[in-house]
């Protein structure tokens, strides 16, 4: 297919439609508005339905209804809107409903600001709703990757009957880059025989439910769900490891900020310093295995985030005490400049400062 210059938000929409998404329930919020707007234009042309809900809570519960009816369905929002969806996401997980949820995040807490930030890492990876659950979280770093991962996300959702989160930020949503819609490799998807159908099969009553009033029934339900999580942890971990062999420092960074780290890597090369990069593509499951091999030259891990430090918890767990774990973060909507990362690395190495 022809290359196109597309805005991240619209690319998400196009990718979703390509992946067979037929329903979208949204509510406006900056910086993701172009996505519902795109869907309102394009979905009807593709035999789908766009509906604007009364709120994020309305939207996520409409997703619950549509997903329970077997539809490929998506919703999107940004940080505070995702916070409002937490109960709904918890229900989707409890009822094992597949869907894709997009967070083009901004800075918080509270109303905060609307510039790109990564302060929703915990919200996305630690199930900020109630109870025991996780959702796969994809963090693309370019529009092309966004497009690829969105398509993947729908398949992963259906394979494991789970909501999947795409965690972008204002920059991913707003920027344009060239994209190509490749035919991604299709998975063999299980039949949705648990879903409500347009035509009822007599005698097989379907129930979409997250209530297990007896602990003796709730526990096995959870164990079943966590059994799937074990498979996801084995099969679906994705990350990129770059420049790590013999690196002086290995940075860990995802999404937007990983691109800044790439610039820093180049700049540091000029000074003869080797900076490696572990870029988690799935934030959950976190790519712990990427940390297994550490070069003897490596003196520290450096978690670089557009936040006050959240992924660093996972980096610490992955590191398991072997090396110092350092942090460089710019929160509040500031995208750090490559030179800041450069300086931090030099500081760690006892260089400049």
């Amino acid at each position, binding site marked *: 297919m022809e290359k196109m210059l597309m805005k991240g938000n619209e690319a998400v929409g196009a990718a979703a439609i390509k992946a067979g998404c037929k329903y979208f329930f949204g509510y406006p919020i900056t910086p993701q508005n172009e996505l519902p707007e795109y869907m309102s234009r394009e979905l009807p042309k593709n035999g789908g339905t766009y509906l604007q809900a009364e709120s994020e809570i309305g939207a996520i519960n409409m997703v619950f209804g549509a997903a329970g009816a077997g539809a490929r369905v998506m919703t999107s929002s940004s940080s505070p809107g995702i916070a409002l969806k937490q109960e709904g996401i918890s229900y989707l997980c409890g009822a094992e409903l597949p869907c894709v949820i997009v967070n083009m995040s901004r800075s918080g807490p509270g109303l905060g600001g609307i510039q790109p930030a990564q302060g929703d890492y915990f919200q996305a990876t630690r199930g900020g709703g109630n109870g025991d659950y996780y959702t796969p979280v994809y963090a693309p770093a370019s529009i092309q990757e966004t497009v690829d991962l969105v398509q993947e996300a729908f398949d992963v959702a259906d394979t494991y009957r789970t909501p999947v989160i795409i965690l972008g930020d204002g*920059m991913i949503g707003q920027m344009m880059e*060239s994209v190509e819609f490749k035919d991604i490799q299709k998975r063999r998807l299980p039949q949705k025989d648990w879903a409500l159908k347009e035509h009822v099969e007599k005698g097989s009553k379907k129930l979409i439910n997250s209530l297990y009033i007896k602990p003796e029934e709730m526990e096995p339900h959870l164990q079943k769900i966590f059994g799937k999580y074990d498979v996801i942890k084995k099969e679906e971990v994705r990350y990129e490891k770059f420049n790590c062999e013999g690196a002086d420092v290995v940075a860990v960074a995802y999404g937007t900020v990983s691109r800044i780290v790439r610039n820093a890597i*180049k700049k540091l090369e000029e000074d003869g310093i080797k900076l490696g990069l572990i870029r988690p593509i799935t934030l959950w499951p976190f790519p712990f295995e990427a940390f297994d091999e550490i070069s003897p030259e490596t003196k520290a891990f450096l978690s670089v985030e557009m936040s006050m430090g959240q992924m660093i918890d996972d980096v610490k767990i992955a590191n398991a005490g072997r090396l110092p774990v350092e942090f460089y973060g710019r929160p509040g909507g500031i*995208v750090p400049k*490559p030179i800041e990362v450069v300086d931090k690395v030099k500081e760690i190495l006892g260089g400049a400062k």
Partner: protein
Amino acid sequence: MAFTEEVIFAGFGGQGVLSMGRMVAYAGMLKGMNVSWLPSYGPEMRGGTANCNVIVSDGLIGSPVVADADTLIVMNRPSLDKFESWVRPGGKILVNSSLIDIKVTRDDVEAFYYPVNEVAAECGNLKAANMVMLGAYIKHRSFLEENDLLGAFLKVFGEAKKNLLPLNEKAVAAGATLV
């Protein structure tokens, strides 16, 4: 050595600065280069200013944020005030002198002044001022030609705006002659 051009376009909301950036990015992409386009967004737009960052490169693009611009294109005065310091030493600043009555104060950059509003008016439509400026821009940075821009125009605005092509052709050409 890899080619990379980082540009900031800035001006009032109605001046088409976001489109200028998109056209340059699209043209770069059509020529097989990697590109990124990043707009400002948010309630500041209510104040009526807009800007975007464009990067065109034959290598991988890291951060799409332009921190040290090769070129700054300013269409109104507040934009010059705000972005003058964002240009790398040795970079260029293209100033819409129709609306900006002050001069660039830095002496480690090259500044050029083009009365693009007047030129556009001469071409028949004040709205084409941005195209005039683009015409001048591509003379400064020779990775694009006039035709590339016009091809990108169709991509950005769609076939429906084809009728505007002659006007824009004229405007781009007029801009090119300013340099």
